[in-house]
């Protein structure tokens, strides 16, 4: 989001010459900001004619290394597969094997790279920026993909952002526990389960999904709301606190049961008026009043 604004600000410099000389610099800046707000939806498209190439982000997570994945993504064959689908940048988070990966990449000839620029680093706390770069956004960038180890942290983050995802389970970890999640995500259609040795085919499948769906043209990313809506909140832990105060627990249980009965009653009333009598809304209002009174008790 911040990136997008900066871009527009840079582009808008030429257009802002219409501001008269008498206006102070601060005011001009404010106006410019306003114009950006207004032009957020449409005019930006005309300024950036050529979209950047697709990006691929490979991450092995914070906890353990994943050497076989790093070796796979630093082969000429893999880079060729990336280039074939229009990828231009490969970012790699290497964990403890950063030095080994760098020397492997340095050994690649220009021909082997197929025009893909490879960048790597050990670890960063700001993984989110790299993941966002792989999320397609209408008129800003095409969708790339994230190739991730099977850790829940990274996968949760990527799915939360909505970037295309390839999960490669790390088989060296305790009872190969990452495999289960990778398989279940594949089953539910949330990610592609990639395998060491045949990662290029996973890239092909991701490209298929991107062309089938609307992943290239998503609306701008907005971070999830905090705090979450009251109806979505997880309340189990609050109930657990109440078990430490038995009398409070009894009171709240009573209230909750009343609330449930009220909700059921309201549901029934909402289903009834479908038949066509005009009493529906009035009943619902009554219901709300009752609810308030019960809560006062």
């Amino acid at each position, binding site marked *: 989001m911040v990136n997008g604004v900066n871009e527009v600000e840079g582009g808008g410099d030429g257009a802002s010459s219409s501001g008269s000389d008498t206006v102070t610099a601060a005011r001009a800046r404010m106006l410019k900001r306003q114009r950006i707000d207004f032009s957020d939806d449409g005019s930006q498209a005309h300024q950036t004619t050529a979209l950047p190439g697709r990006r691929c982000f490979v991450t092995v*997570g*914070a*906890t*353990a290394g994943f050497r076989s994945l790093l070796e796979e993504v630093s082969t000429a064959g893999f880079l060729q597969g990336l280039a074939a689908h229009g990828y231009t940048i490969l970012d790699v988070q290497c964990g403890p094997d950063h030095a080994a990966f760098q020397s492997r990449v340095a050994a690649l000839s220009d021909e082997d790279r197929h025009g893909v620029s490879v960048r790597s680093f050990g*670890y960063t*706390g700001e993984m989110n920026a790299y993941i966002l770069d792989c999320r*397609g956004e209408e008129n800003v960038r095409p969708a790339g993909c994230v190739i991730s180890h*099977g*850790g*829940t*942290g*990274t*996968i*949760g*983050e990527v*799915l*939360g952002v*909505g970037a295309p995802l390839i999960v490669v389970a790390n088989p060296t*970890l*305790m*009872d190969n*526990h*990452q495999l*289960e*999640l990778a398989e*279940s995500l594949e089953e539910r259609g*949330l990610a592609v389960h990639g395998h060491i040795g045949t990662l290029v085919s996973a890239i092909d499948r991701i490209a298929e999904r991107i062309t089938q*769906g*609307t*992943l290239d043209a*998503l609306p701008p990313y907005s971070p*999830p709301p*905090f*705090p*979450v809506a*009251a109806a*979505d*909140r*997880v*309340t*189990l*832990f*609050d*109930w*657990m*606190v*109440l*078990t*430490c*105060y*038995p009398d*409070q627990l009894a009171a*709240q249980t009573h*209230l*909750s049961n009343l*609330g*449930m009965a*009220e*909700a059921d009653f309201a549901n029934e009333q909402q289903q009834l008026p479908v038949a066509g009598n005009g009493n529906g809304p009035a009943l619902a209002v009554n219901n709300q009043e009752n609810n308030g009174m019960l*809560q006062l008790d």
Partner: protein
Amino acid sequence: MERFVREMVEDFGPDRFAVFVYLGLIGIMITSVIGFFILSWSWITAIIGVFIGFVAWRHVSIKREHPRPQTGRRWISRRDPSTPDTSGLPAVYFLYILGSGGHTSEMLETIKRKFVPQANAHRRYLVTTGDQDSLDRVVKLESLIHRCFPDPRAGTLDTFQVPRARKVHQPFWTAPLSCLATAIHAINALTREPNARPYTRHGAQFKYPHVVITNGPATGFIVCLVAHALKLFYLVPPTRLKMVYVESWARSRSLSLTGRLFLWSGIADMFCVQHEALARGTRGAVYVGQVAARLAPPG
């Protein structure tokens, strides 16, 4: 060793509760060694038998107090978002056990999903020593909370460090030693009063955490085992240190090792899993839905 002792001493609270526990443990050890040489075998077996009987009886009676899984299920399937309301309680004190990497991300997401602003809340984060990444992420979450809510409503917080129970590739046979170090530090973390909530202002309300939440690191099991032992021997009142285990989101078909330990030992007050199929196949498990991962609306 010297560093270990210094770290431990720094952790002690003003009431030195943990010191008494340690002295008690050392005393029991010395008496049992002496007793082993003095007493006859029949006496030794009798004493050990009584001890085991006592522990078993306490364990069963504490377990009987746990809320039923059915109750937990009802608490989750509520249709009225206004309950439960914990803002009227004298104290709401959570202890979150952060593992590393994925465990931390899952826990922080869970905290976000359960957060409600209230001035009577205290949060303690248990971080393993040297896990700077988890600490950074806690700071990030807390600054988000404090940005969204002005000071009294955000509640208070502190962090506590314990040594890690088992590193990712550590062999299993060295694990008992590191687990012991974790357990010793855990006593401090569980019983030291938060500096932000002193006895002079709040009485004993903030002495022990109400709810301990863990989601799968081995450290979490050790800490919960210590918490359970504190309750067994009447060192902590039974209305504190309620334990909630949330199985990792990664586990959709089978339980993790820590999960099996929790289920088998039955020390968790509430045992939660995040996949319905797994909940159906596990006795005593409560399906809580996907609390540790957020899925974007499909694009």
